């Protein structure tokens, strides 16, 4: 989903940067990084950065790699998640040439803003509405959030491309179906990995999730008597 340089017009690129800068500033203000969180965010970002190199095959011999935006957001919260994903995208662009620099704004908008905030918002709303307690329903919500997040990020990319017809050839009638078909599959993989990861954490280290701004709001954490030191 990384859009390389040469795919978007300057107008679209600049507009994307403008939106993204607003989110950066908000996120940065919101997280009020405490000292402890600096190494934590750095290390977790590194882990996801590494995990994103793992490719898996999708349709017609194409491959995709993990996006992880939803998982990051759900675990460390949307604001920290946005910063984390941004760091990853910048490193991918400047150290690997994966995704362009002029298109960095658009990539951040798709993957670090839409890809992170949408799943978090969905999960937050679901949780408010349904107050799920069973493992199955919680993980079901995780799946849906991750799936929709990935899909909407792809839709955003399709829109940006279609708005760039000065350099890019296709309009929304082509880009949208293409992206949706592809990402219905990638989205499932994304959702499955998110479910397994969060499921494992629920089992092994619920305390880690308890301090999460999103998952920590789950009803199962509410009347916990045993508190971590």
């Amino acid at each position, binding site marked *: 989903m990384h859009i390389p340089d040469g795919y978007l017009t300057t107008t679209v690129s600049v507009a994307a940067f403008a939106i993204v800068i607003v989110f950066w500033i908000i996120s940065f203000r919101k997280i009020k990084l405490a000292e402890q969180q*600096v190494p934590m965010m750095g290390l977790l970002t*590194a882990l996801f950065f590494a995990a994103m190199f793992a490719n898996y095959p999708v349709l017609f011999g194409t491959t995709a790699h993990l996006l992880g935006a939803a998982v990051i957001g759900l675990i460390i919260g949307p604001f920290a998640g946005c910063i984390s994903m941004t760091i990853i995208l910048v490193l991918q662009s400047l150290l690997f040439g994966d995704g362009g620099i*002029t298109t960095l704004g658009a990539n951040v908008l798709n993957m670090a803003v839409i890809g992170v905030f949408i799943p978090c918002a969905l999960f937050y709303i679901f949780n408010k509405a349904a107050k799920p307690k069973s493992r199955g329903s919680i993980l079901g919500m995780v799946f849906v959030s991750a799936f929709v997040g990935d899909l909407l990020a792809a839709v955003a990319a399709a829109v940006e491309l279609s708005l760039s017809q000065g350099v890019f050839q296709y309009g929304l009638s082509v880009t949208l179906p293409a992206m949706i078909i592809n990402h219905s599959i990638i989205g499932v993989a994304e959702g499955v990995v998110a479910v397994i990861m969060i499921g494992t954490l629920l089992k092994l280290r619920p305390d880690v999730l308890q301090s999460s701004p999103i998952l920590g709001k789950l009803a199962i954490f509410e009347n916990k008597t045993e508190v971590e030191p």
Partner: protein
Amino acid sequence: MNAPTSLRDIMAGAESLVYVEDLSEKKGLMQAINPLAKLIAIIGMIIASLFITNLTVLLTICVIPMVFAVSSRVPLKQFFLRTAMIALFAAVLSTLTLFMTPGTAVWAASIGGFNLSITLEGLMRGTVFTVRVWFCVASLIMLVLSTGFDKTIKLFASIKVPSVVIQLFSLTYRYFFVSVEEAQSVLIAKEARTYVHKRNLNLQSLKDLGSIIASLFIRTYERSERVYLAMKARGFQIEDNSKHSMPKLRIRDVAFASSIIVAFAAIAML
């Protein structure tokens, strides 16, 4: 290397970074330019190319990244390998255009009742797009290969990125390698004890990936507590006062950036 597919990708990522580290330490034209000047010049080149629609002009400017590569001691084979994939993808992406663009047909056929024709305009459009994408990728890759992490950090410092963010970048970079090593060893250890090899994508391999990331996550989380303590013991503060030294902009850096920008602006306005 006998490792599961996904693992090999992870390791290839780390190796590629190490490769960048090496190249960026060589002595060459691009390595000698101040990273900020380089960034501005490359962005200028990319933006200018977006306004160029003449194929001949585009093909001509493609020489520039190649000249950069040669003068920066980047092995050409590596250079082309790294840039080929994205351009190839752009070419494949353009195939539909060939048929969809109205204009003079250069080739026509009727398949199963459909009238298909490739137009000259379509061909032009597709080629221009592909060539431009290659130019952009090649320019960016030259920035990547000649800069390396060390100088990237200096670049951030010179565009006034907050120091906390720079620290986050450093930590991410450093522990990327730790994560890779951990992922690698976990997968190998697992493989040494798994007797059935599953090559294709299936639920099991996604499950494995998920559970390995989860266990790495727990370890990473716990490690971060110890790293924090180690940092604190050595005087870590969120307002970092150990300023990152930024390389000075010398006359030759300014000359490099401005000449490129002026030249490309001129070409773009042709």
